Structures are given as C-alpha cells and as structure tokens.
C-alpha cells in the first residue's frame, strides 16, 4: 500500500526516480510480484515488519556506503555492532553506569573500532579487506570476552528502541530513517562526503587537489563504526539482550545492500537511497519467502536467484537506456 499509493499519486516523479535508481525498479517489481502471490504481503503491518527487519542491515549498510564510496570495504561492521551492544549492556549491568552514559560508551566503542581500521588502512597501508577482517576477529572475540559467552540483558530504557510508538510505528524503522537521512546529508552536503567520492574515484587526484586523504579515511571508517554501533544497539534492543554472536555474517548483507543499491566496490559511486533500497530488497525477499512458505532449503536458492535477477534488471535497464 505504502508503495503503491506513492506510485499512483505522483507518476512522473516516481518515473524519474525509477529511471535514476534502477534498484528501485527491482524493488517495485518484487513488491508487486509478492503482493500477487501472497495475500498476507501487502498489509500495513507486514510492510512495517519488513521495515523493522530491514532496519539493522540498512543501518549497517549506510555505514558501509561511506566506506565503499571511498573504494574500501568494511568486514567488521557485524562484529563491531555486537561488541558495542555488548559493552552497553555490560557497563549498564555490571558497572551500574546510567544507561545514557553506557550508550555513549557503546557509540565510542564503534568510533574507536573504526579509527583503528582507518589507521591500519591509511597509515599502515593495509588493504581494507585485511584490516577490517582482523577487526572482525578482534571485535567478535572481545564481545565474547566481555560477555563470557553469555547474553547480557539490555537496560530497559534502551530496549525501548526495539518497541513501537503508539502501538504502530516501530522505533527501528524510525532509527533507520534518521540514520538514512544523516547518511544522505553527509554524502551530499558535507565536505567529508564529497571527499569520499573523490577519494574513491581517484585517490591520487584527490590528494593532489588538497584533500587530506588520511584524515578523511579516519572520518569515513569512524562513521562506519558509529553506524555499526547504532545498528548493534537497535538489534540488541529488539532482542532485549546483547548477544556475543549477534549480527554474525551481516557484513556480507550490508555490502550486498550497498552494491545492489548501485554502488561499485571499486569506489566513487553510491547513494544512501540506493543502499536503503538494497536493504529493503533483501528484507522483502526474506519476508516474502517466509510468507509463501518456501521450504527452508530452497529459500537460499531462491534468494540467490532473485538477487541476481534484481541486479540484472538494473544493469540491463541501464544498458537499454544507452
């Protein structure tokens, strides 16, 4: 409903949006197809569910968008999300820190992880793949160390982030929207955002144009870290407990969302809106397959095929346009 009214009310705007953002077309096709196949799909509640289910991936993916635009990659986002949430729950539960402070500490953990990544990459000249893979191990390991392997309960106040407002609007969707707007503004309007595109497009040209590449990478990865922390907190709030294994493997989903959204892993390209669409495509797909009761073993197959088709639609459409 959400989507279909939009499409109907402002056709031409929608058309130009679709033309500009191929993945959006894929999402629309997917939504239409699923509405036809399952009566349970196109209800307000279910669409809100999809939003909630997309939220964590989307927030992680917004952070990854920054990194990917600079031509890097961040494999540590899932682990950093888990570690941040764990630190929040742990400082609140074990050291009795008030929850707002504990939340700040958790965000700081995200920033620090990001900065360490960036230092290794920008000054240690490590390939981003290796630096962030190392951070994946370290952050996941530390989450286990902190928790001694057991989940820790989240402070109740923070857990509200997993609730709904007025019984309808889920807070994770709200947080996703806010983080998305922040990502879009950073990318489009700030110095750092523009620098990210330049660095990813041609790092040497950026450097020779006076952009402090090292410093901008610090900001980029720190942003990715803080977005991961937010995602981790939202995730833990949904579960009301911080889990050491939370968000394991989400880094691939996040990267997939960014790339489905039209970014290139070689850098210089990518948009927040595209990333959101990418995350929604993944969530819609999983939700739809559940609703259609596709057998568990076949689900992975179908998800794989549909992802390929969705992006294929995008590339074919773009080539047709030429």
């Amino acid at each position, binding site marked *: 409903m959400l989507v279909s009214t939009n499409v109907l009310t402002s056709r031409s705007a929608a058309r130009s949006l679709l033309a500009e953002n191929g993945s959006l077309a894929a999402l629309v096709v997917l939504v239409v197809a699923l509405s036809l196949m399952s009566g349970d799909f196109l209800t307000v509640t279910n669409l809100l569910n999809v939003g909630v*289910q997309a939220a964590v991936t989307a927030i992680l993916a917004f952070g990854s968008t920054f990194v990917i635009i600079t031509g890097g990659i961040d494999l540590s986002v899932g682990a950093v999300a888990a570690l941040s949430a764990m630190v929040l729950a742990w400082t609140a539960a074990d050291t009795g820190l008030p929850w707002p402070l504990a939340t700040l500490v958790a965000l700081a953990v995200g920033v620090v992880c990001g900065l360490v990544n960036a230092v290794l990459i920008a000054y240690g000249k490590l390939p981003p793949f290796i630096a962030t893979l190392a951070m994946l191990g370290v952050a996941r390991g530390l989450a286990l160390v902190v928790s001694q392997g057991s989940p820790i309960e989240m402070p109740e106040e923070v857990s509200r982030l997993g609730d709904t407002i007025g019984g309808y609007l889920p807070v994770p969707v709200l947080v996703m929207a806010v983080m998305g707007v922040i990502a879009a503004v950073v990318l489009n309007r700030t110095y750092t955002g523009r620098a990210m595109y330049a660095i990813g497009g041609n790092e040497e040209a950026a450097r020779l144009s006076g952009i402090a590449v090292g410093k901008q990478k610090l900001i980029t990865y720190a942003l990715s870290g803080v977005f991961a922390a937010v995602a981790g907190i939202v995730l833990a709030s949904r579960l*009301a407990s911080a889990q050491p*294994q939370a968000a394991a493997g989400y880094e691939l989903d996040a990267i997939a969302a960014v790339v489905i959204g039209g970014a290139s892993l070689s850098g210089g390209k990518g948009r927040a809106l595209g990333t959101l669409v990418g995350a929604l495509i993944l969530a819609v797909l999983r939700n739809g397959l559940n609703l259609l009761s596709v057998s568990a073993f076949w689900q992975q197959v179908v998800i794989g095929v549909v992802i390929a088709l969705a992006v294929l639609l995008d590339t074919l459409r773009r080539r047709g346009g030429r």
Partner: protein
Amino acid sequence: GSAGTDSSGSGGGTPAAADVKIGMSVSTLNNPYFVQLRDGAEAEAKKLGATLTVTDAQNDASQQVNQVQNFTSQSMKAIILNPVDSDAAAPAVKVAERSNIPVLAVDRGVNGAKVVQTVASDNVAGGKLAAEQLAKELGEKGEVVVLQGVAGTSASRDRGKGFSEGIKAYPNIKVVAQQPADFDRTKGLDVMTNLLQSHPGVTGVFAENDEMALGAIKALGAKAGKQVKVVGFDGTPDGLKAIEAGTLAASVAQQPALLGQQAVQNAVRAANGEQVPATVDVPVKVATKDNLSEFTGS
C-alpha cells in the same frame, strides 16, 4: 521404558487438526540434529493433517524474531520456536503474544517470556551425564580434552557447565584443554589434531556434539575407542553408527525426532484452545554399545 517409547504423548486421543496452520522456526538446519527434529515435526503434522511451515533462522536470533513476525502476518494458529538463544527468544514470543498466538518452545527453553509449553532436553544434566560416562570409560582417571561448541550458544554453555560440574567428582581426571570447534566436524578434526600435538597423553575426549566427536575420531585414527575414549552428544545417526563401530564410546542422546513430534502434537492442541502441560521433559540418555538398539530402532 525408555524415553522414546511413549510416542502418544501426554493426554490421550489424536487432536483434531484439520486446517490448523502451524509455524516452526528452527535455529539452524545446517546440523543433522535439527533436521531430525524437523523431520519428526513434519511427520507428526502430516499424520494429524496440520499444515506446518518450517523456517531456518540460520543461528541468528534476530532473523528468528523476523520469522515469528512473519508467522503472525500469515495468521498462524500456533508457533513452535526452537530458540537460537534462550535469552534472545523472549521478544519473538512477545511478538506472537500480541497477536494471541500460542508459542511452544522446543529443544531449548525461553527465558524472560512465557510460552505455553517447553518441550526440551536438559543440557546441563546432559553435560553431567557425559562426565559420568566418560569417567566410567576411563576408569576414573586420565587426561581429558573438551571440544566446545560455538562460543556464546546456550547449548555449548550448558553442556560445558554440566560437564565441568560433573567431572569435579573425579579428582584423578584432569581436563588438560578446552578448545572451540564450533559444533563443526571439520573443525573438530583440525582442533583435535592440534591438541594431540601438545597433549599426546590424552585418554578421553568430550565433544559437545556428535559432529565434533566424529571429527575428533578422524583425528585420533586407530586410537579412537582404544587408547582414547570419545563421548559425544546428540545421538545422531552418524554418531550411533560410530558407537556401533566402537570408535565412539558413548553419546548423550537427545531425541530430536521425538521433540519435534511432541511439539507439533501439543501445538495443535494449543491451537484448538486446549490446555497443555507447561513442560514436556524429553530425557536425555546415554547411548552406548550396550543399549544401542533402543536408539537405532526409532
């Protein structure tokens, strides 16, 4: 009789199940144990004429919440939850509660939210049983290594806890190493191989599941079952075969198919508004060469 025989479950008579839609979210299907659990559930659903939809949460607690949410969208009449993590399952239960759908927990309990029924085996008790059995096999002395499951999962935590409590009773048994092999057969092989280098005098192995135990047996080669006794957990078909072959000394058998069957039976009852007992205990039992027929029969 043994636990596996009372297949008619609690209460008599077959529940009326025509057109009952049940959703079941399994923690992972990448493990034969849970495949058995699912198969047991599906067989029972078929028998009762209920529609069972099984989803795979891929060991991700939040994906599991998503799946329960999706079940509510599909207006399931009852939901069977095999939690990825007992603590993290509460929100999923609450989601269903809001839509007034009864939830049953299977294999692992749920902390922090009320389910109408828990069908489970006791992992702490199982860990203890494993300790006792291994002690018996070793003549109450020797060097033991523990292969741990995925760090942070309740199954690993509880079995480890039960085992270390149980093994304390035998002062001559020394746990010389505990290393994670993530419930995975390949990792069990590699980690055991490595541990044999630093602890060549090992005489006993406790693996927190059969998959790792089978990997360890591979690493031990000819020593398995002779110089080194291996105790596993689950009683999977491959595990039982190894017991028969003498390479695996024992396995703390769970009865996943029975768990699944019981869960579906009671889910149908709950869906029909009947009262169901709060717990169904499916006991764990040590499977050895001597009592193997009790397990392979079912």
